[in-house]
Protein backbone atom coordinates (compact mmCIF):
# COMPACT_ATOMS: atom_id res chain seq x y z
CA UNK A 1 0.00 0.00 0.00
CA UNK A 2 1.41 3.35 -1.04
CA UNK A 3 1.67 5.98 1.64
CA UNK A 4 0.35 9.51 1.13
CA UNK A 5 2.92 12.30 1.32
CA UNK A 6 2.22 16.01 1.43
CA UNK A 7 4.25 17.51 -1.42
CA UNK A 8 3.00 21.07 -1.15
CA UNK A 9 0.49 23.33 0.56
CA UNK A 10 -1.16 26.66 -0.19
CA UNK A 11 -3.80 28.92 1.27
CA UNK A 12 -5.43 32.28 0.82
CA UNK A 13 -5.67 34.42 3.90
CA UNK A 14 -8.86 33.69 5.84
CA UNK A 15 -11.23 36.62 6.31
CA UNK A 16 -13.23 38.96 4.14
CA UNK A 17 -12.23 38.80 0.47
CA UNK A 18 -14.02 41.76 -1.03
CA UNK A 19 -15.18 41.06 -4.58
CA UNK A 20 -13.54 37.62 -4.69
CA UNK A 21 -15.34 34.63 -6.16
CA UNK A 22 -15.15 30.97 -5.24
CA UNK A 23 -13.11 30.15 -8.35
CA UNK A 24 -10.54 32.90 -7.75
CA UNK A 25 -10.00 31.84 -4.12
CA UNK A 26 -9.64 28.23 -5.20
CA UNK A 27 -7.11 29.01 -7.93
CA UNK A 28 -5.05 31.23 -5.62
CA UNK A 29 -4.68 28.52 -2.95
CA UNK A 30 -4.06 25.70 -5.43
CA UNK A 31 -1.46 27.65 -7.43
CA UNK A 32 0.51 28.25 -4.25
CA UNK A 33 0.32 24.54 -3.41
CA UNK A 34 1.67 23.60 -6.85
CA UNK A 35 4.55 26.07 -6.49
CA UNK A 36 5.31 24.71 -3.02
CA UNK A 37 5.18 21.10 -4.27
CA UNK A 38 7.28 21.62 -7.39
CA UNK A 39 4.70 19.45 -9.17
CA UNK A 40 3.21 20.55 -12.49
CA UNK A 41 -0.55 20.43 -12.98
CA UNK A 42 -0.32 17.91 -15.83
CA UNK A 43 1.04 15.32 -13.38
CA UNK A 44 -2.19 15.42 -11.35
CA UNK A 45 -4.55 12.50 -11.87
CA UNK A 46 -7.33 13.37 -9.41
CA UNK A 47 -8.88 16.56 -8.01
CA UNK A 48 -11.06 16.55 -4.90
CA UNK A 49 -12.65 19.83 -3.90
CA UNK A 50 -14.30 20.31 -0.51
CA UNK A 51 -17.10 22.86 -0.74
CA UNK A 52 -20.34 23.12 1.22
CA UNK A 53 -22.53 25.81 -0.30
CA UNK A 54 -21.17 27.14 -3.58
CA UNK A 55 -24.57 26.40 -5.10
CA UNK A 56 -26.10 28.99 -2.76
CA UNK A 57 -23.32 31.59 -2.40
CA UNK A 58 -22.13 31.63 -6.02
CA UNK A 59 -24.85 29.70 -7.84
CA UNK A 60 -21.99 27.39 -8.72
CA UNK A 61 -21.89 23.63 -8.39
CA UNK A 62 -19.57 21.21 -10.20
CA UNK A 63 -16.57 22.62 -8.35
CA UNK A 64 -14.30 19.67 -9.18
CA UNK A 65 -14.55 20.22 -12.91
CA UNK A 66 -14.17 23.95 -12.42
CA UNK A 67 -10.88 23.41 -10.56
CA UNK A 68 -9.57 20.94 -13.16
CA UNK A 69 -10.44 23.41 -15.91
CA UNK A 70 -9.08 26.59 -14.33
CA UNK A 71 -5.87 24.95 -13.09
CA UNK A 72 -5.06 23.07 -16.29
CA UNK A 73 -5.59 19.45 -15.24
CA UNK A 74 -7.55 18.02 -18.17
CA UNK A 75 -6.65 14.37 -17.60
CA UNK A 76 -7.59 14.39 -13.93
CA UNK A 77 -10.68 12.78 -12.44
CA UNK A 78 -12.43 15.62 -10.64
CA UNK A 79 -15.22 15.91 -8.13
CA UNK A 80 -16.60 18.03 -5.33
CA UNK A 81 -16.83 16.32 -1.94
CA UNK A 82 -19.51 17.57 0.46
CA UNK A 83 -19.77 16.64 4.11
CA UNK A 84 -20.86 20.02 5.53
CA UNK A 85 -18.07 21.62 7.60
CA UNK A 86 -16.00 18.43 7.17
CA UNK A 87 -16.07 18.65 3.37
CA UNK A 88 -12.37 19.09 2.74
CA UNK A 89 -11.34 16.76 5.58
CA UNK A 90 -13.44 14.25 3.66
CA UNK A 91 -11.62 15.23 0.45
CA UNK A 92 -8.28 14.44 2.13
CA UNK A 93 -9.69 11.09 3.28
CA UNK A 94 -10.75 10.21 -0.27
CA UNK A 95 -7.45 11.40 -1.77
CA UNK A 96 -5.55 9.17 0.60
CA UNK A 97 -7.71 6.17 -0.33
CA UNK A 98 -7.13 6.81 -4.04
CA UNK A 99 -3.38 6.79 -3.44
CA UNK A 100 -3.47 3.80 -1.10
CA UNK A 101 -5.34 1.73 -3.66
CA UNK A 102 -2.98 2.70 -6.46
CA UNK A 103 -5.60 4.54 -8.50
CA UNK A 104 -3.79 7.85 -8.17
CA UNK A 105 -0.20 8.97 -7.74
CA UNK A 106 -0.64 12.71 -7.47
CA UNK A 107 -3.80 14.41 -6.22
CA UNK A 108 -4.90 17.98 -5.64
CA UNK A 109 -7.15 18.39 -2.60
CA UNK A 110 -8.56 21.79 -1.88
CA UNK A 111 -11.41 23.39 -0.03
CA UNK A 112 -13.13 26.70 -0.62
CA UNK A 113 -15.99 28.81 0.70
CA UNK A 114 -17.05 32.32 -0.23
CA UNK A 115 -19.46 33.46 2.49
CA UNK A 116 -19.39 37.21 3.21
CA UNK A 117 -20.98 38.45 0.00
CA UNK A 118 -24.14 36.46 0.68
CA UNK A 119 -25.30 38.24 3.87
CA UNK A 120 -25.83 36.95 7.40
CA UNK A 121 -29.46 35.75 7.20
CA UNK A 122 -28.98 33.80 3.97
CA UNK A 123 -25.66 32.36 5.21
CA UNK A 124 -27.32 31.27 8.48
CA UNK A 125 -29.95 29.57 6.33
CA UNK A 126 -27.33 27.91 4.12
CA UNK A 127 -25.32 26.69 7.14
CA UNK A 128 -28.51 25.19 8.55
CA UNK A 129 -28.55 22.82 5.57
CA UNK A 130 -26.03 20.76 7.53
CA UNK A 131 -28.77 20.05 10.09
CA UNK A 132 -31.99 18.04 9.72
CA UNK A 133 -34.28 20.15 7.55
CA UNK A 134 -37.61 18.88 8.91
CA UNK A 135 -36.79 18.24 12.55
CA UNK A 136 -34.33 21.10 13.17
CA UNK A 137 -34.49 23.89 10.58
CA UNK A 138 -38.29 23.90 10.44
CA UNK A 139 -38.48 24.98 14.10
CA UNK A 140 -35.93 27.76 13.65
CA UNK A 141 -33.04 25.83 15.16
CA UNK A 142 -29.94 27.52 13.73
CA UNK A 143 -26.46 26.03 13.93
CA UNK A 144 -25.38 28.26 16.82
CA UNK A 145 -28.61 27.19 18.58
CA UNK A 146 -27.74 23.50 18.18
CA UNK A 147 -24.34 24.13 19.76
CA UNK A 148 -26.03 26.32 22.41
CA UNK A 149 -28.05 23.26 23.43
CA UNK A 150 -24.91 21.12 23.51
CA UNK A 151 -23.11 23.83 25.52
CA UNK A 152 -25.95 24.12 28.04
CA UNK A 153 -25.84 20.36 28.57
CA UNK A 154 -22.03 20.42 28.86
CA UNK A 155 -22.19 23.16 31.51
CA UNK A 156 -24.86 21.20 33.39
CA UNK A 157 -23.08 17.84 33.27
CA UNK A 158 -19.48 18.91 33.95
CA UNK A 159 -17.63 21.15 36.40
CA UNK A 160 -16.91 23.69 33.63
CA UNK A 161 -18.15 27.28 33.95
CA UNK A 162 -18.92 29.50 30.99
CA UNK A 163 -15.65 31.37 31.71
CA UNK A 164 -13.76 28.07 31.48
CA UNK A 165 -15.13 27.69 27.95
CA UNK A 166 -14.39 31.36 27.20
CA UNK A 167 -10.73 30.54 27.98
CA UNK A 168 -10.76 28.58 24.70
CA UNK A 169 -11.55 31.78 22.79
CA UNK A 170 -8.87 33.70 24.69
CA UNK A 171 -6.27 31.01 23.89
CA UNK A 172 -7.19 30.72 20.21
CA UNK A 173 -7.32 34.48 19.68
CA UNK A 174 -3.85 34.71 21.27
CA UNK A 175 -2.61 32.06 18.82
CA UNK A 176 -4.12 33.92 15.87
CA UNK A 177 -2.04 37.05 16.52
CA UNK A 178 1.10 35.61 14.90
CA UNK A 179 -0.65 33.77 12.06
CA UNK A 180 -0.68 35.94 8.91
CA UNK A 181 -3.52 33.82 7.50
CA UNK A 182 -5.79 34.43 10.51
CA UNK A 183 -9.02 36.44 10.21
CA UNK A 184 -8.45 37.91 13.68
CA UNK A 185 -4.92 38.91 14.65
CA UNK A 186 -5.74 40.70 17.88
CA UNK A 187 -5.89 39.15 21.35
CA UNK A 188 -9.01 39.28 23.49
CA UNK A 189 -9.65 39.30 27.25
CA UNK A 190 -11.90 36.97 29.22
CA UNK A 191 -14.34 39.74 30.21
CA UNK A 192 -14.74 40.80 26.56
CA UNK A 193 -15.86 37.27 25.72
CA UNK A 194 -18.42 37.36 28.52
CA UNK A 195 -19.88 40.65 27.29
CA UNK A 196 -20.21 39.81 23.59
CA UNK A 197 -23.52 40.06 21.74
CA UNK A 198 -25.69 36.93 22.05
CA UNK A 199 -26.36 34.81 18.93
CA UNK A 200 -28.19 31.87 20.50
CA UNK A 201 -27.82 31.87 24.29
CA UNK A 202 -25.70 30.59 25.89
CA UNK A 203 -23.61 31.00 22.69
CA UNK A 204 -22.52 34.58 21.98
CA UNK A 205 -20.46 36.04 19.15
CA UNK A 206 -17.13 35.28 20.87
CA UNK A 207 -18.00 31.70 21.76
CA UNK A 208 -18.45 31.15 18.00
CA UNK A 209 -16.27 31.14 14.90
CA UNK A 210 -16.80 33.99 12.43
CA UNK A 211 -18.10 33.93 8.86
CA UNK A 212 -15.09 33.62 6.57
CA UNK A 213 -14.01 33.64 2.94
CA UNK A 214 -11.02 31.49 2.03
CA UNK A 215 -9.48 28.51 0.33
CA UNK A 216 -6.73 26.03 1.21
CA UNK A 217 -5.04 23.40 -0.93
CA UNK A 218 -2.53 20.55 -0.77
CA UNK A 219 -0.79 18.42 -3.35
CA UNK A 220 -0.74 14.86 -2.02
CA UNK A 221 1.40 12.22 -3.72
CA UNK A 222 2.33 8.58 -3.23
CA UNK A 223 5.74 7.93 -1.68
CA UNK A 224 6.72 6.18 -4.93
CA UNK A 225 5.86 9.32 -6.90
CA UNK A 226 7.75 11.47 -4.40
CA UNK A 227 10.88 9.34 -4.82
CA UNK A 228 10.60 9.15 -8.62
CA UNK A 229 10.37 12.93 -8.90
CA UNK A 230 12.80 13.66 -6.10
CA UNK A 231 10.20 15.73 -4.22
CA UNK A 232 10.74 17.29 -0.84
CA UNK A 233 7.77 15.61 0.89
CA UNK A 234 8.77 14.72 4.41
CA UNK A 235 5.30 14.70 5.94
CA UNK A 236 3.13 11.61 5.62
CA UNK A 237 -0.55 11.10 6.40
CA UNK A 238 -0.06 7.92 8.37
CA UNK A 239 -3.60 7.35 9.62
CA UNK A 240 -7.14 8.34 8.77
CA UNK A 241 -10.56 7.74 10.30
CA UNK A 242 -14.05 8.79 9.29
CA UNK A 243 -17.34 8.07 11.04
CA UNK A 244 -20.93 9.27 11.31
CA UNK A 245 -23.56 9.95 13.96
CA UNK A 246 -27.25 10.86 13.84
CA UNK A 247 -27.95 13.89 11.66
CA UNK A 248 -30.24 15.51 14.23
CA UNK A 249 -29.09 16.32 17.76
CA UNK A 250 -32.46 15.13 19.11
CA UNK A 251 -31.68 11.55 18.06
CA UNK A 252 -28.70 11.36 20.45
CA UNK A 253 -29.07 10.09 23.99
CA UNK A 254 -26.08 12.19 25.10
CA UNK A 255 -26.14 15.78 23.89
CA UNK A 256 -22.61 16.59 25.07
CA UNK A 257 -20.74 13.84 23.28
CA UNK A 258 -19.37 13.53 19.71
CA UNK A 259 -19.28 9.80 19.05
CA UNK A 260 -18.36 10.04 15.36
CA UNK A 261 -15.14 11.80 16.30
CA UNK A 262 -14.38 9.12 18.91
CA UNK A 263 -14.68 6.44 16.24
CA UNK A 264 -12.71 8.42 13.64
CA UNK A 265 -9.91 9.04 16.14
CA UNK A 266 -9.71 5.38 17.13
CA UNK A 267 -9.41 4.38 13.46
CA UNK A 268 -6.77 7.01 12.70
CA UNK A 269 -4.65 6.11 15.73
CA UNK A 270 -4.87 2.38 14.98
CA UNK A 271 -3.84 2.84 11.36
CA UNK A 272 -0.94 5.14 12.18
CA UNK A 273 0.22 2.99 15.09
CA UNK A 274 0.64 6.19 17.10
CA UNK A 275 -0.43 6.53 20.71
CA UNK A 276 -1.70 9.67 22.44
CA UNK A 277 1.57 10.39 24.20
CA UNK A 278 3.41 10.58 20.85
CA UNK A 279 1.21 13.43 19.53
CA UNK A 280 2.89 16.84 19.67
CA UNK A 281 0.37 19.25 18.14
CA UNK A 282 -3.34 19.22 17.27
CA UNK A 283 -5.76 21.24 15.15
CA UNK A 284 -9.38 20.69 16.25
CA UNK A 285 -12.72 21.88 14.88
CA UNK A 286 -13.56 24.64 17.38
CA UNK A 287 -16.60 26.05 15.55
CA UNK A 288 -17.84 26.94 19.05
CA UNK A 289 -15.92 26.93 22.34
CA UNK A 290 -17.71 23.83 23.60
CA UNK A 291 -16.74 22.04 20.39
CA UNK A 292 -13.04 22.27 21.30
CA UNK A 293 -13.72 20.77 24.73
CA UNK A 294 -15.73 17.94 23.17
CA UNK A 295 -13.05 17.41 20.49
CA UNK A 296 -10.30 16.93 23.07
CA UNK A 297 -12.47 14.34 24.85
CA UNK A 298 -13.31 12.49 21.63
CA UNK A 299 -9.64 12.46 20.63
CA UNK A 300 -8.85 10.84 23.97
CA UNK A 301 -6.65 13.56 25.44
CA UNK A 302 -9.14 14.14 28.27
CA UNK A 303 -11.76 12.02 30.01
CA UNK A 304 -15.42 12.80 29.35
CA UNK A 305 -16.37 16.13 30.91
CA UNK A 306 -12.75 17.25 31.38
CA UNK A 307 -11.83 18.68 27.94
CA UNK A 308 -12.48 22.28 29.09
CA UNK A 309 -9.46 22.03 31.41
CA UNK A 310 -7.00 22.24 28.49
CA UNK A 311 -7.49 25.95 27.89
CA UNK A 312 -8.61 26.92 31.41
CA UNK A 313 -5.58 25.30 33.07
CA UNK A 314 -3.00 25.97 30.34
CA UNK A 315 -2.13 22.54 29.00
CA UNK A 316 -3.35 23.33 25.45
CA UNK A 317 -1.70 26.75 25.29
CA UNK A 318 1.32 27.30 23.01
CA UNK A 319 3.66 26.76 25.94
CA UNK A 320 1.66 23.85 27.34
CA UNK A 321 2.33 20.14 26.97
CA UNK A 322 -0.26 19.71 24.17
CA UNK A 323 -0.64 22.86 22.03
CA UNK A 324 -4.10 22.89 20.40
CA UNK A 325 -5.07 25.14 17.48
CA UNK A 326 -1.75 26.90 17.11
CA UNK A 327 -3.24 28.44 13.94
CA UNK A 328 -5.88 30.23 16.00
CA UNK A 329 -8.43 27.56 15.15
CA UNK A 330 -11.81 28.27 13.62
CA UNK A 331 -12.51 30.87 16.31
CA UNK A 332 -9.56 33.11 15.37
CA UNK A 333 -8.23 31.92 12.01
CA UNK A 334 -11.79 31.65 10.70
CA UNK A 335 -14.04 28.99 9.21
CA UNK A 336 -14.51 29.06 5.44
CA UNK A 337 -16.61 25.96 5.87
CA UNK A 338 -15.51 23.76 2.98
CA UNK A 339 -11.86 24.87 3.29
CA UNK A 340 -11.34 24.18 6.98
CA UNK A 341 -10.28 20.50 6.77
CA UNK A 342 -7.50 21.16 4.27
CA UNK A 343 -6.65 24.35 6.17
CA UNK A 344 -5.98 22.23 9.27
CA UNK A 345 -3.80 19.92 7.16
CA UNK A 346 -1.71 22.88 5.93
CA UNK A 347 -1.23 24.15 9.50
CA UNK A 348 -0.07 20.78 10.86
CA UNK A 349 2.20 20.33 7.81
CA UNK A 350 3.89 23.66 8.62
CA UNK A 351 4.37 22.51 12.21
CA UNK A 352 5.97 19.23 11.12
CA UNK A 353 8.16 20.98 8.53
CA UNK A 354 9.32 23.44 11.21
CA UNK A 355 7.94 26.55 9.48
CA UNK A 356 4.87 27.49 11.51
CA UNK A 357 4.51 31.05 12.89
CA UNK A 358 3.69 29.46 16.27
CA UNK A 359 6.23 26.67 15.93
CA UNK A 360 6.08 23.88 18.52
CA UNK A 361 9.70 22.84 19.06
CA UNK A 362 10.52 19.42 17.70
CA UNK A 363 6.97 18.52 16.60
CA UNK A 364 7.01 15.24 14.64
CA UNK A 365 3.44 13.93 15.01
CA UNK A 366 0.25 15.97 14.59
CA UNK A 367 -3.49 15.38 14.41
CA UNK A 368 -6.33 17.10 12.54
CA UNK A 369 -9.97 16.84 13.67
CA UNK A 370 -12.66 18.12 11.25
CA UNK A 371 -16.38 17.87 12.06
CA UNK A 372 -19.52 18.16 9.95
CA UNK A 373 -22.63 19.72 11.46
CA UNK A 374 -23.23 19.05 15.14
CA UNK A 375 -20.97 15.99 14.90
CA UNK A 376 -22.90 13.91 12.37
CA UNK A 377 -19.69 13.38 10.41
CA UNK A 378 -16.10 13.52 11.62
CA UNK A 379 -12.70 13.02 10.01
CA UNK A 380 -9.45 12.58 11.91
CA UNK A 381 -5.98 12.33 10.35
CA UNK A 382 -2.57 11.62 11.87
CA UNK A 383 0.37 13.34 10.17
CA UNK A 384 4.00 12.60 10.87
CA UNK A 385 7.52 13.33 9.73
CA UNK A 386 8.91 10.33 7.84
CA UNK A 387 12.17 11.49 6.30
Amino acid at each position, binding site marked *: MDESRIAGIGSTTYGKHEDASTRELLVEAASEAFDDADVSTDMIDAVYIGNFMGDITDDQGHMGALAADYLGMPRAASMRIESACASSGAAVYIARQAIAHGHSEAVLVAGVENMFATGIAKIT*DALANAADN*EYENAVGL*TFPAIYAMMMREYLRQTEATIDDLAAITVKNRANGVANPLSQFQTPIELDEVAEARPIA*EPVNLLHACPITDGASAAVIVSDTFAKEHDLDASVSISGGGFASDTLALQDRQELHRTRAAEQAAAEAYAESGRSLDEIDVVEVHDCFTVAEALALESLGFYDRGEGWRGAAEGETHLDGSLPVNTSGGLISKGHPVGATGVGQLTEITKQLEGRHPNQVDGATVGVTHNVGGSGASAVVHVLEVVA
Partner: protein
Amino acid sequence: MSAQQPNWFVEFAQAIDADDAFYLHCTACQSGSLPPRSSCPRCPNDVLERRPLSRQATVRSHALVYVTIPRFIDDAPYTVVLARLEEGVQLTGQLRGADEVSVGDPVHLGVEKYPEDAWLLTFTPD
Protein backbone atom coordinates in the same frame (compact mmCIF):
# COMPACT_ATOMS: atom_id res chain seq x y z
CA MET B 1 -35.17 26.22 4.00
CA SER B 2 -38.16 27.20 2.01
CA ALA B 3 -38.84 23.93 0.20
CA GLN B 4 -42.31 22.49 0.69
CA GLN B 5 -42.59 20.17 3.69
CA PRO B 6 -42.56 16.51 2.61
CA ASN B 7 -45.68 14.37 2.99
CA TRP B 8 -44.28 12.24 5.82
CA PHE B 9 -43.66 15.33 7.94
CA VAL B 10 -47.07 16.81 7.16
CA GLU B 11 -48.68 13.50 8.19
CA PHE B 12 -46.63 13.46 11.43
CA ALA B 13 -47.61 17.05 12.27
CA GLN B 14 -51.27 16.56 11.33
CA ALA B 15 -51.42 13.52 13.63
CA ILE B 16 -50.19 15.66 16.54
CA ASP B 17 -52.75 18.31 15.61
CA ALA B 18 -55.53 15.68 15.61
CA ASP B 19 -54.46 14.40 19.04
CA ASP B 20 -53.37 11.18 17.39
CA ALA B 21 -49.58 11.60 17.70
CA PHE B 22 -47.39 8.57 17.04
CA TYR B 23 -43.81 7.33 17.10
CA LEU B 24 -42.08 4.20 15.84
CA HIS B 25 -41.35 1.32 18.20
CA CYS B 26 -38.66 -1.26 17.45
CA THR B 27 -39.99 -4.76 18.09
CA ALA B 28 -36.45 -6.07 18.71
CA CYS B 29 -34.56 -3.59 20.93
CA GLN B 30 -37.71 -1.76 22.18
CA SER B 31 -36.26 1.68 21.41
CA GLY B 32 -38.30 4.50 19.94
CA SER B 33 -37.64 6.48 16.79
CA LEU B 34 -39.41 8.97 14.54
CA PRO B 35 -40.81 8.86 11.02
CA PRO B 36 -39.96 8.36 8.21
CA ARG B 37 -37.50 5.66 9.28
CA SER B 38 -37.99 2.19 7.86
CA SER B 39 -35.43 0.50 10.09
CA CYS B 40 -34.33 0.91 13.68
CA PRO B 41 -31.40 3.34 14.10
CA ARG B 42 -30.06 1.36 17.09
CA CYS B 43 -30.24 -2.27 15.98
CA PRO B 44 -30.43 -4.28 12.73
CA ASN B 45 -34.21 -4.74 12.99
CA ASP B 46 -36.46 -3.37 10.25
CA VAL B 47 -39.82 -4.02 11.89
CA LEU B 48 -41.12 -0.77 13.38
CA GLU B 49 -44.59 -0.50 14.88
CA ARG B 50 -46.50 2.74 14.91
CA ARG B 51 -47.48 3.47 18.53
CA PRO B 52 -49.32 6.36 20.21
CA LEU B 53 -47.19 9.22 21.53
CA SER B 54 -48.39 10.81 24.79
CA ARG B 55 -47.16 14.35 23.96
CA GLN B 56 -45.92 14.74 27.57
CA ALA B 57 -42.24 15.65 27.67
CA THR B 58 -39.40 16.93 29.84
CA VAL B 59 -37.02 19.71 28.74
CA ARG B 60 -33.49 18.44 28.11
CA SER B 61 -31.94 21.61 26.67
CA HIS B 62 -32.91 24.95 25.17
CA ALA B 63 -31.50 27.97 23.36
CA LEU B 64 -32.59 31.60 23.00
CA VAL B 65 -32.12 32.42 19.31
CA TYR B 66 -31.22 35.99 18.29
CA VAL B 67 -29.61 35.57 14.87
CA THR B 68 -31.78 33.44 12.64
CA ILE B 69 -32.87 32.41 9.18
CA PRO B 70 -35.06 34.72 7.05
CA ARG B 71 -38.26 32.79 7.82
CA PHE B 72 -38.08 33.52 11.58
CA ILE B 73 -36.30 36.88 11.52
CA ASP B 74 -39.34 38.83 12.76
CA ASP B 75 -39.77 36.44 15.71
CA ALA B 76 -36.27 36.75 17.18
CA PRO B 77 -35.42 36.37 19.95
CA TYR B 78 -37.34 33.13 20.45
CA THR B 79 -36.65 29.97 22.44
CA VAL B 80 -36.13 26.52 20.94
CA VAL B 81 -36.55 23.50 23.23
CA LEU B 82 -35.24 19.95 22.92
CA ALA B 83 -37.45 17.68 25.03
CA ARG B 84 -37.73 13.96 25.79
CA LEU B 85 -41.20 12.47 25.39
CA GLU B 86 -42.44 9.94 27.95
CA GLU B 87 -41.92 7.20 25.37
CA GLY B 88 -38.20 8.04 25.12
CA VAL B 89 -38.03 9.76 21.74
CA GLN B 90 -36.83 13.36 21.64
CA LEU B 91 -38.19 16.26 19.60
CA THR B 92 -37.31 19.91 19.06
CA GLY B 93 -39.88 22.69 19.04
CA GLN B 94 -40.39 26.38 19.66
CA LEU B 95 -41.44 27.46 23.14
CA ARG B 96 -45.02 28.69 23.49
CA GLY B 97 -47.01 30.00 26.46
CA ALA B 98 -43.96 31.18 28.46
CA ASP B 99 -40.95 33.44 28.07
CA GLU B 100 -38.52 31.11 29.79
CA VAL B 101 -38.02 27.44 30.45
CA SER B 102 -35.57 25.33 32.47
CA VAL B 103 -34.02 21.90 31.98
CA GLY B 104 -36.26 19.36 33.70
CA ASP B 105 -39.48 21.36 33.25
CA PRO B 106 -42.54 19.37 32.13
CA VAL B 107 -43.87 20.53 28.75
CA HIS B 108 -46.33 19.22 26.21
CA LEU B 109 -45.93 18.84 22.47
CA GLY B 110 -48.11 20.72 20.01
CA VAL B 111 -48.10 21.97 16.44
CA GLU B 112 -49.23 25.11 14.67
CA LYS B 113 -49.21 26.38 11.13
CA TYR B 114 -46.49 29.00 11.22
CA PRO B 115 -45.20 30.80 9.33
CA GLU B 116 -47.87 30.65 6.63
CA ASP B 117 -48.64 27.06 5.71
CA ALA B 118 -45.62 25.31 7.24
CA TRP B 119 -46.18 23.01 10.23
CA LEU B 120 -44.19 24.08 13.30
CA LEU B 121 -43.63 21.81 16.33
CA THR B 122 -44.06 23.56 19.68
CA PHE B 123 -43.59 22.84 23.39
CA THR B 124 -45.70 24.55 26.05
CA PRO B 125 -45.03 24.30 29.80
CA ASP B 126 -47.70 22.33 31.69
